[in-house]
């Protein structure tokens, strides 16, 4: 009777992550964001969309924690409601970026030579298109909406992810441990699952966090310009756009949405780095007999593996 190899005791990546100041801070902020987003679907202190011109520009008080804006909306409630928008945009754009990115990367590295080369050129061409321009073009065609923002930033960053992941996949596939895995009977799918994905993960995780951060900024920017969220959807970018017209008169009000955007983008970037570091076994344990910082372990002397210039990389067959 076959018993699969039991999973060896794993050090929790999350546990390691939360122990670093960066990881803990980023995770805390994002957790708060998620909670705020969830809560805002059911409840906000006041209706974020109710306008009351007689209550315009009220300073912070018990009733309006962050005051009101030019049309009397409660800024705090609006920010809370908009957090849900932010979460939705970031997650959806992230998903689109992952699908586009990994899909293109796989096509560009694991297929026949002509397909690979064609996809490589395609990726380079697509990378050249500025995301904002694409968003504006889509908005012009289909009208501004969050979907436009999500698709534009998802695809835009997905292509960058594809570019980076592709070279990582090609590097990993050349490594000796992949050859050894194939010699142990692993098929292409197993090699991908067990060796390629975990080893491209560090680069990929950072890119994904950047993609999500950029999508938030893009949403804010596009909504600011009028191509993103419609008036019925709460968005930090829209609020910023509304408030900045009065920057000279009421400068403090922009702090609300401004800080919200900045902190969220920062948190995502930091989280990406922290996850990458937490998942790297080399950074979690020390090498034998080391004290203090040492240069990378010196290679034991030996003839270098065959010069890559002399033998072309073998095709990845199944």
């Amino acid at each position: 009777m076959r018993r699969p190899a039991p999973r060896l005791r794993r050090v929790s990546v999350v546990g390691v992550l939360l122990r670093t100041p960066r990881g803990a801070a980023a995770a805390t902020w994002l957790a708060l964001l998620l909670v705020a987003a969830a809560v805002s679907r059911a409840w906000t202190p006041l209706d974020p969309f109710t306008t009351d011109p007689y209550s315009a520009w009220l300073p912070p008080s018990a009733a309006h924690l962050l005051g009101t804006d030019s049309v009397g909306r409660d800024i705090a409630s609006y920010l809370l409601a908009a957090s849900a928008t932010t979460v939705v945009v970031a997650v959806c754009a992230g998903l689109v970026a992952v699908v586009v990115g990994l899909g293109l990367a796989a096509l560009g590295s694991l297929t026949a030579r002509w397909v690979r080369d064609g996809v490589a050129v395609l990726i380079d061409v697509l990378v050249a298109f500025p995301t904002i321009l694409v968003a504006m073009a889509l908005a012009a065609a289909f009208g501004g909406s969050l979907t436009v923002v999500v698709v534009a930033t998802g695809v835009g960053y997905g292509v960058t992810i594809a570019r980076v992941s592709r070279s990582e996949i090609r590097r990993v596939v050349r490594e000796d441990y992949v050859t050894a895995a194939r010699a142990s009977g692993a098929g292409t799918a197993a090699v991908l699952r067990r060796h390629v994905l975990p080893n491209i993960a560090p680069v990929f995780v950072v890119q994904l966090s950047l993609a999500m951060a950029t999508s938030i900024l893009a949403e804010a920017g596009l909504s600011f310009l009028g191509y993103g969220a419609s008036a019925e959807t709460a968005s930090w970018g829209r609020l910023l756009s509304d408030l900045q017209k009065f920057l000279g008169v009421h400068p403090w009000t922009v702090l609300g949405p401004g800080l919200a955007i900045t902190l969220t983008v920062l948190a995502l970037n930091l989280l990406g780095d922290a996850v990458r570091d937490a998942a790297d076994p080399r950074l979690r344990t020390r090498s034998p007999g080391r004290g203090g910082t040492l240069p990378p372990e010196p290679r034991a002397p030996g003839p270098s593996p065959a010069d890559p210039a002399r033998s072309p990389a073998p095709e990845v067959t199944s």
Partner: protein
Amino acid sequence: MTLEIDHLTVTVGDRRVVDDLSLRLGPGERLGLIGESGSGKSMTTLAVLGLLPPGARATGSIRLDGREVTGLAERDLAPLRGAVVGTVFQDPRTSLDPVMTIGRQIAEPLHLHGRLSRREGRARAVAAAAEVGLPEPTTIVDRYPHQLSGGQRQRVVIATALIARPSVLLADEPTTALDVTTQAEVLALFRRLVDERGTSLLFVTHDLAVLSRVADDALVLSHGRVVERGPVTRLLRSPEHPVTRGLVEATRATTWRAS
């Protein structure tokens, strides 16, 4: 004495990677540093060059041509490298700049340490290339490293190391990455050049058999300390320290026996 090292200790963090090492090298002498990886032999050469990695601290005295070099600032050390001490590292693939022609790389020490016109530099490079046995010296100086074989690249590195006529040549595993036939030629080249010019040679290796072909005396290193020293023939025939004995036995068990 071209190279004198007294009580050199190199620490990284709380570890001593070189522990109280002393040696003397005179003109024309060929001394080997033998030990396994991690024994501190490479760190010793880096200490002589003042190129220790960040985080490493060295104490003790190192004198090149009578001049104390420990504690020298970078701008006083740099003129010595290439001019007083030449170096050959292990990997010929990474020791050469892939976007510089061979001729420019060989002549670089001359341009760094003195004024030389382009044409003079090229002429000296051609002469140096011929001296190390590179084929077609007048055309090879215009080639790029990727157009040469591993053995040829290592010859280029040797030519570069010696062109400014240093008093000391440091070689750190220079033949380990080469084929066995090329290795034999390069070792013979070392012997010839050192004899002809009277340069001192400090040859670092983990391979006793290679050592026996190029050095007269040797220091055996283990965990940063010198555990035995003496003529190579004596070390091979009657090693005293257990580390040396272990090395000799292991070498016997893994190398070619002609008889």
